């Protein structure tokens, strides 16, 4: 049975994209596939929503884009993380870690009570 898709929290998609791009430059399709794979399809993103996010992030200056060529000699738009994006990623990682640990503490505490 496939896992139930989780709704993406506001800004989470952007966080995921930044994290994905921190491994290297990728085109949109690769980003979508990578996120799906890495999360074992747990996060079902509507792929169409990826592109507005990419362009939004580009406007914020977190990522940069350029047209390149794939292995199959196909023109594609490649995105890569910028200095500003890396800073943003660091900030979000730390707040995410704090958020997750806070939530898991509650989860642990709750289990302890019952």
């Amino acid at each position, binding site marked *: 049975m496939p896992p139930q898709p989780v709704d993406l929290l506001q800004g989470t998609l952007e966080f995921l994209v930044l994290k994905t791009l921190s491994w290297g430059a990728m085109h949109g399709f690769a980003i979508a596939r990578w996120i799906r794979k890495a999360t074992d399809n747990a996060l079902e993103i509507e792929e169409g*929503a990826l592109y507005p996010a990419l362009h939004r992030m580009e406007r914020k200056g977190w990522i940069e884009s350029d047209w390149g060529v794939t292995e199959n000699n196909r023109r594609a738009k490649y995105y890569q993380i910028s200095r500003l994006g890396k800073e943003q990623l660091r900030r979000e990682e730390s707040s995410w870690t704090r958020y997750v640990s806070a939530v898991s503490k509650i989860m642990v505490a709750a289990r302890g009570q019952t």
Partner: protein
Amino acid sequence: MLTPSRLFRRLRALLTRRRFDADVEEEIRFHLEMEAAKQQARGLAPAAATSEASRRFGSTTVAREEVRDAHGLTPVDDLRRDLRFAARSLARAPAYTAVALLTLALGIGGTIAVFTLVNATLIQPLPFHDPGRIMAVRGVTREGQAIPVSVPNFLDWKQQNHSFDLLATYNTRRGNLLGGNDPQRVSLTTVSGEFFPILGVMAMAGRSIAPADQTGDHPATIVLSYGLWRRAFGGDTGIVGRHLSLGDGSDYLVAGIMPGTFDFPQGTEVWASRSFQGVRWTRNAINDQVIGRLRNGTTLQSTRQEMDLIAARLKAAFPNETENQTATISVRPLAEELSDGIRTYLLLVQVSVLFVLLVGCANLASAGLARGIQREREMGLRTALGASRGRLLRQLLTEHLLVGVAGGLLGLGLALVLLKSLVLLAPAGLLPLRDLAPDLTVVVTALALSVIVGLGIGLLPAILGSRLELRSALGSAGGGSSRRRAGAGWALVSAEIGLSLMLLIGAGLLIHSFGRVLSEDPGARMEDVLTAEVFLPRSRYPTPETGLVFWERLLDRVRAAPGVRSAAAASAIPLGLGTSGYLEIEGQEGTPTGGYRLVTDDYFKTMDLHLLRGRGFTTADDSTHPHVTIINQAMADKYWKGQDPVGRRFRAKSWDWHPDVWLTVIGVVNNVRYWTLEAKPEPEHFVYFRQRPDRLQGMTLVAHTAGDPAEVSAAVRSAFRQTDPDVPADVSTMTQKRDDTLRQRRFIMTLLGGFAAFALLLAAIGIYGVLSYVTASRTREIGVRIALGARRQGVLALVMRQAASPVLWGVLAGLGGALALSRLMDALLYGISARDAFTFLAAPPVLVLVAAAACVVPARRALRIDPMVAIRSD
């Protein structure tokens, strides 16, 4: 945060919109194709793979829109849509659009052109060094008239004052330039050494005139204007350092060439140095203008006080010298004096253009109102279909803004054309010779103006019709809002009528006054007279006898030329400049004045002056006989009122080379006008060249011709060449001279007339527009009236009556406004008052007629209403 690079990217996205869209498209397509390929690899059929890819992707449209949103492109898209929509809806109303664009283009074009002129002449500083400290210094008579200065007085001013760093004289006249290829008649300004240092303008080639020139061992020097240098010397800088002659016996070193932008005093072609040494100057000869550079830290007020003290001192020291009629000395910034002549004109033109612009705006606003009513139903429909009010308003504004900006740009183009043609058409001396290009401020102001006008026009109907009642808008035309709009429309018509009437009265005053000037009798023959102004070079004609020989030979040749009826010469001819001086009349006290004219045989016959009394000159009146003179009617009236002047005697102290010899009056001739047609005839007297051959250097040849004088000009020129090829002459005709004196008047009259005609046309269009839609909105009512048996006259009266009261109010307001502004016109009028009753009474009927004509079309349309159709419509 909007960093420059991001701003740039965003701008680029906006500008390279098409490419941007294509890029997004390709990015999405790439994704879909990759996904499809992946699905196919998993074993799906190609078609199924493609649809699975689409399913996974979701809506491409939403993705595209959101990508655009991400770049902030949606408002731009809206604007594009609005603009496209506005352009389409304007194209559907070509008449409205054409009128609107034309009105704006003319109004704004005229405004830019005129304000550029004003800017160039009244606001921008003179193109001299530190122009604020350059002063014009003039003597002022007890009557308050500014007059030139004599050389001794100038030298005293210079020596006694502590306010000026530098003072210089200048004096412009026509002169000869000899020693080049052809002898030239040029506009010559003699300047004292400090002239150029005061202005602080550098020569384009060589140098300008320096204080040391023409003193001690330094030679006399001239500087050429750029125009003359190009025209007469082919733009060859080799002329610098060579010597030319002004025909006065000295050689002049060509020191330099001035740049083309330097034009002071206006029209000067040659500036020549002058020396005050070696000549005994009298305080009677007042010929020089003075400029000075104020010393740093000196105020205008203290300078004026000091100069007045000096004037009083000189007056006390030389009580008998006539120039000390100079009561005070006036010191004014040169810029102020130079704009004296043109300020009134420019002010008038400025006000007129503003009026035309206002009429145009009122017109556009009323046209916009009319359109608003026509579109009420469309707007209602669109509101019903879900368009928000803000969106509709925005669309309307976009439409008007589009008209405003397009009109503004057209206007800018028109302004450039106007300025070019104004410079070509305007009489010499009216406009300064400068670059008349609209500067950035003027352009920006004008475009801002067009946007404001556009918005204003757009907002007015929007405000008046803001409460769009859906039901009434869809149900029938002519609800409360439409009546309110009609009221506003009529108010605009009143304003247009009022402003147009003011312009019409202004133009009428100028036309009336022009007629008065034209009807002035110059007192002499104007048609078929050829003139040639000559100044005999002193180097070639050093004695009176040699001058006499020249004139006798020349006149013989001209008289023998085919087509010449008679020929003569005089030291001053009608409409020309005359010299006037002080007289001593036997048995009379005071300081009478009179013009001094030297004439040859046949002068009265050639110029058609009538001998009213006594006799004319004869060859018997030579130097061995008593010296005689002929006076004009004005002189007889002024000095021998009610008596017979023949036989009386007087002496011409200022001009006569024999100031102690009594002249006996032998005849009286009619008055002649000098300078302009409107100048009052002053006392003048004529002396005969055989008794006074001493002032023959500066004379004008006049020839009465059998046909067109231009056809004789070749023969006259050849007569000059045969007599002396080194004497240049300015050949012209009397009619040409008369036209020259009228040019300024004709120019301003044509300009204001054009404005008035244009405003009138606009007002007519405005009345037509408002009446049309008001009538259209009453179609059903009129139809019912016709169905009930209303007669044609009744219907006509019904329609016309609507326009009557706004026109009447407009006329009243216009008359009031014209009266209030009449002072503006005073200085430009001749022979009539600025509140001339005839013009004030004649203008309103013209306007009412035009208004009535504008009503005809809507009224006829009302007459043609078919009651059956009208009642069933809506």
